[in-house]
């Protein structure tokens, strides 16, 4: 029953006519699946029947289709990044962040304190063969290595080193250790940089860390205030000291000059005195008396032969000064006789 239908099928023009689209489609599929392009930042690893064959540089390349050749494209020139403890959204690298950032940050420091550490690892695929065929999950392995190394390094340091002063050292030591492990595990990556991001004490402790900072500031303030007082008082006192010394120097000069003046005057007068001592003496005496007597309001003049001055002293102030009375009054001013 099928016999009659076969001969027309086998007629050449008809077969060619019907088969052409099929062949064309087939050909298109073959061509379509036998070329591939490698982006400029990548390299292609070609496997034939599973066996590593070659690496292809960026550009257009051909391969045998239908699963004979398999191509893996690796971004070897791209700087890849892994983030620990935080995540920047919109990344294409599936290993860039984990889904449990909190657990990643928590660490115990070498003085058994806790700290929250965030960091970034920058790396590149340096050896595609190793990256593909020596390690399964190289990205996850790098994450594990990175976490482990960071904890090891932080575990060797005090909380103060981790949070403030030791950051640089931690970065460089972690980088060296990570690279060492990456080599040991044949991961085929080269680690370029380890960067510490935020490092904080755990939230419940942060206040007390701030308190330390405040206390530090307060200490500075107290010291500065004391210095201010010091600076306000001491230079002034120095100045005052100089002032007093200069005043004293002035006094010394004054005393000396005055003494010299007095002496000069004395010498001049004395020279004259020596020429006529008696008269000069008397003159000086009388001049002085004349000068002082008028000012004195109570003057009592007694006769040296009279006895008992007391009754007379009760007299009015303006009593006659010239009353000759008996008294034993000693005249207060009696110039010395040579």
């Amino acid at each position: 029953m099928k016999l009659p239908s076969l001969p027309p099928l086998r007629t050449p023009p008809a077969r060619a006519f019907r088969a052409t689209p099929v062949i064309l489609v087939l050909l298109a599929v073959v061509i379509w699946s036998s070329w591939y392009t490698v982006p400029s930042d990548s390299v292609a690893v070609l496997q034939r029947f599973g066996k590593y064959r070659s690496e292809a540089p960026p550009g257009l390349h051909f391969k045998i289709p239908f699963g004979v050749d398999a191509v893996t494209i690796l971004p070897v020139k791209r700087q890849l990044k892994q983030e620990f403890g935080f995540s920047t959204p919109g990344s294409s690298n599936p290993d860039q962040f984990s889904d449990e950032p909190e657990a990643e940050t928590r660490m115990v420091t070498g003085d058994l304190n806790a700290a929250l550490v965030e960091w970034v690892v920058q790396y590149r695929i340096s050896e595609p063969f190793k990256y593909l065929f020596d390690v399964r999950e190289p990205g996850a392995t790098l994450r594990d290595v990175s976490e482990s190394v960071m904890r090891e390094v932080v575990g060797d340091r005090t909380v103060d080193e981790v949070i403030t002063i030791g950051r640089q050292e931690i970065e460089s030591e972690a980088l060296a250790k990570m690279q060492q492990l990456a080599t040991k595990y044949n991961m085929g990556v080269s680690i370029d940089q380890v960067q510490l991001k935020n490092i904080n004490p755990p939230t419940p402790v942060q206040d007390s860390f701030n308190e330390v900072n405040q206390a530090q500031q307060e200490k500075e303030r107290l010291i500065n205030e004391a210095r201010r007082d010091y600076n306000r008082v001491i230079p002034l006192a120095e100045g005052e000291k100089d002032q007093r010394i200069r005043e004293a120097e002035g006094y010394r000069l004054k005393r000396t000059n005055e003494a010299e003046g007095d002496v000069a005057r004395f010498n001049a007068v004395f020279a004259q005195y020596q020429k006529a001592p008696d008269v000069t003496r008397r003159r000086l005496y009388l001049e002085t008396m004349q000068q002082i007597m008028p000012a004195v309001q109570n003057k009592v003049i007694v006769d040296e032969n009279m006895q008992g001055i007391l009754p007379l002293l009760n007299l009015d102030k303006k009593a006659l000064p010239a009353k000759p009375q008996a008294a034993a009054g000693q005249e207060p001013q009696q110039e010395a006789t040579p």
Partner: protein
Amino acid sequence: MNRLLPIAAALLAFLLFNAFYTVGEAQQVILTQFGKPVGAPVTEAGLKMKLPFIQDVNRIDKRILEWDGSPSDMPTKDKLYIAVDLFARWRITDPLQYFLRLRDERSALSRLDDILGSETRNAVAKHELIEIIRTTKDRIPLQDSTLGESQDTADAQDGNKAVGALVPIHKGREQVEQEIFKAAAEKVKVFGIELLDIRFKRINYNASVQPKIFERMISERRQIAERFRSEGNGEAARIRGNMSRDLNRIQSEAYRRVEEIRGEGDAKAAEIYANAYNQNPEAAHFYEFTRTLEAYPAIVTEDSTMVLSTDSDLFKFLKATGSKPSGQP
């Protein structure tokens, strides 16, 4: 005949197709015949042949494989509960052995779970927490010049746990890891597995311990803060003391200098006077006379009462005109 040909061809193609298999660069293959391994494991990548249908291909990974333990709480030697998270890297080195003993990766991982889990517990329980945290023995930590002052080192010498200091350790993290590694590597060898490395990934305080740790940290910080305040007050007091000392020094120096200078002045003046007045007895006498006269106006004032005798030099003429000059030799 014509009709059988395509069928035979298809059958042959199918057989041929089944006779070939590929081995990836990351794979090794064990052929089994009715479940029984035959021949040596195929470790070379590429296109290979086998008996179709009779032999099965069992692919085993050749790469370094991951094992990531789940965090579990365990006590340390110093009775602290910590959550330990370990990871390991391993590789199937004897695929036949592996295939016979474990057959697939799931059971391998579960063996690793058991072995590494128990070795970790053993090792952690044998060591104090600090031995697991720290790595380098006798590391001298950097000191924050503003935080760590001389008191710290003094405290450390007293044996107190000082801020900014590290307690010395005996073994350290790496050695503990090595202990676990050695014990476990020996045990997994029988499965055709080579353990490459184990490392602590995360070590954290157990949630119940955490508040206590935080409290300790807070008290430690408070103590530092308090020290800062007291240092500030102390330093301020010292400065004020210096101020008082310097002030007294300056003022007393000033006083001393002033008195010295004034004394010098007075002495100089006295010397000048003495030299002049003492040049001869007559001069001394004359000085006494004139100086006394000079003093009178100052001594005798308006409200003084003067009692004068007629015998005095001034008034002697009141009683008589002294015909003869009175007794001044």
